[in-house]
């Protein structure tokens, strides 16, 4: 018996070893290396020298970084609630059983997730186009002023539209999948007690969705603050609207690969990572506190 118990216990680490080995090499080692790099500075004279937290002090005062962070924070505050609300509404509509063609609708909304963000951005970039985009063409035919999707004041909204288009379906599917696991007896019991469709949605479905909502919110925090692909591609179309520090992530990339300021870039990405971790944990803690014991 003792031998029989001992075997599985020793096999556990063997199963996780390959994953953990790669994890250490490809996650923790680069992070450690970045932390190390961020403490140095390359000087014109005298090569690389240890400067302690100087890079972080510079980063905290850096107006370009601050603007980038404020921009992604604004994006997050507006785009994410909108996207998750839409995902939630779509998931509830699909789950209500009131839809015809529900399978087609469900997969159709999800399809953009399978489209590479590069393709999505190029596509929307052309659709937004002031000359031959369909929106411009339509307003031209109707003799209306063409919408200026790619101008300074519209850009954040245009980006939000692309990201929403890409990810509503993904979030919807997660929420929908969670809804499908609610036992039917709960609905029947609630209906017997006189609860209507809205009451059931509010009192049964929403509480049951809390873990799934937390998950989608978490992914959205990470995604928004890392915004890179979409602005980086639109930058090539409208370089005068999007600059190389438009988002914090784009700024870190530019520092590392265009300006060759590796050490400073490491500090900037570290700060960005820290910010994401703090916000994510704040959401996790709030979600856990509200959950009934």
């Amino acid at each position: 018996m003792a031998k029989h118990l001992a075997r599985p216990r020793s096999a556990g680490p063997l199963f996780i070893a390959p994953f953990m080995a790669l994890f250490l090499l490809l996650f923790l080692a680069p992070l450690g290396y970045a932390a190390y790099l961020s403490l140095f500075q390359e000087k014109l004279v005298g090569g690389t020298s240890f400067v302690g937290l100087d890079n972080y002090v510079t980063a905290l005062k850096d107006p370009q970084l601050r603007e980038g962070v404020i921009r992604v924070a604004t994006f997050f505050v507006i785009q994410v609630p909108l996207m998750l609300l839409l995902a939630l509404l779509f998931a509830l509509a699909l789950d209500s059983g009131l839809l015809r063609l529900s399978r087609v609708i469900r997969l159709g909304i999800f399809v953009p997730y399978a489209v590479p963000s590069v393709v999505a951005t190029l596509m929307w970039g052309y659709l937004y186009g002031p000359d031959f985009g369909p929106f411009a063409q339509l307003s031209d035919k109707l003799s209306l002023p063409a919408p200026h999707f790619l101008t300074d004041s519209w850009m954040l909204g245009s980006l939000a539209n692309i990201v929403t288009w890409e990810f509503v379906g993904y979030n919807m599917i997660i929420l929908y999948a969670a809804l499908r696991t609610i036992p039917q007896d709960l609905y029947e019991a609630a209906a017997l007690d006189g609860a209507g469709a809205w009451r059931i949605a509010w009192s049964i479905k929403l509480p049951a969705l809390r873990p799934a909502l937390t998950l989608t919110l978490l992914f959205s925090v990470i995604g928004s603050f890392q915004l890179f692909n979409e602005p980086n591609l639109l930058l090539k179309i409208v370089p005068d609207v999007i600059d190389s520090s438009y988002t914090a992530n784009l700024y870190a990339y530019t520092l590392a690969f265009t300006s060759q300021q590796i050490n400073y870039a490491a500090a900037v990405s570290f700060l960005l990572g820290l910010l994401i971790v703090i916000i994510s944990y704040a959401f996790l803690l709030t979600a856990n506190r509200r959950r009934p014991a």
Partner: protein
Amino acid sequence: MTTTTPPAGGVVPAADKAPKAAEQRRRPARRTSTPLTIAMLAVLAYFLLPLLWLLIASTKSTRDLINTFGLWFSDAPQLLTNIRLTFTQDDGVFAHWLLNTVLYAGVSAVGAAILAAAAGYGFAKFRFRGNGAAFNLVLGAVMVPATALAIPTYLLFAKVGLVNTPWAIILPSLVSPFGLYLMRVYAQDAVPDSILEAARMDGAGEFRIFSQIVLRLLAPGLVTVLLFTLVATWNNYFLPLIMLNDPDLYPVTVGLSSWAAQAQNGGAGASSDMLALVVTGSMISVIPLVVAFLMLQRYWQSGLATGGVKQ
């Protein structure tokens, strides 16, 4: 007041049978709503019209792209010409990009799914020292932004000569913290302890139990991780943008963006045709993943159900 207590996130029936049973029970019970259906069809239009535009645009020459209405065909559709031009431009580099993408995404997805399945099973079904700590460490890593990781990874890879090789894309994609999380949750429910006990009684080794019994039970979760890693690597732009500078090694995403930049810059010479190539290339690169999702939907949806509900 209702007498029912709301489930607090712990409700996970066997994921593969729950949705089916629910669907059967629900269908005859309620009527459908026409206004809601119409509203959702309008929603559907928003998601599909851009793709329809892409499909239509891929039948046009660059000149027609600019001069004709975007959501209808031009007088001279030339889809096949466009496809031929896309594949012959720059000595057929687009085919290289597609093959590279298939290679990077395929190897990464299969590798990541197997690694995550083994580790998820290890975490779910074995008690050993450091189990919880190691798992939380990996989970915390989900929050580490790609940039914080990509820049030092690039520098490390440059030191060991991995930059500008396929490994620079494949290796980092093999580790999927979310995949591990999903597989652990999945293994907890889908692999009954009694089966493991019985197999051990029969004298089966741990590795044999895993490869012959557990992997089969984990199939829906495995497909989910496989598919989502496939998408993540297929659509990855940031990592290959940093790691690769040889166009022959580019995946489709980086390749297309380099063509798009050419189309943007050049009005003259060969690049004046680039716009049609970018559009057609984009259209071609979308098809494989959409097909994969449609074909495997039964599996990945039930796999996601588990991951989304439990925490």
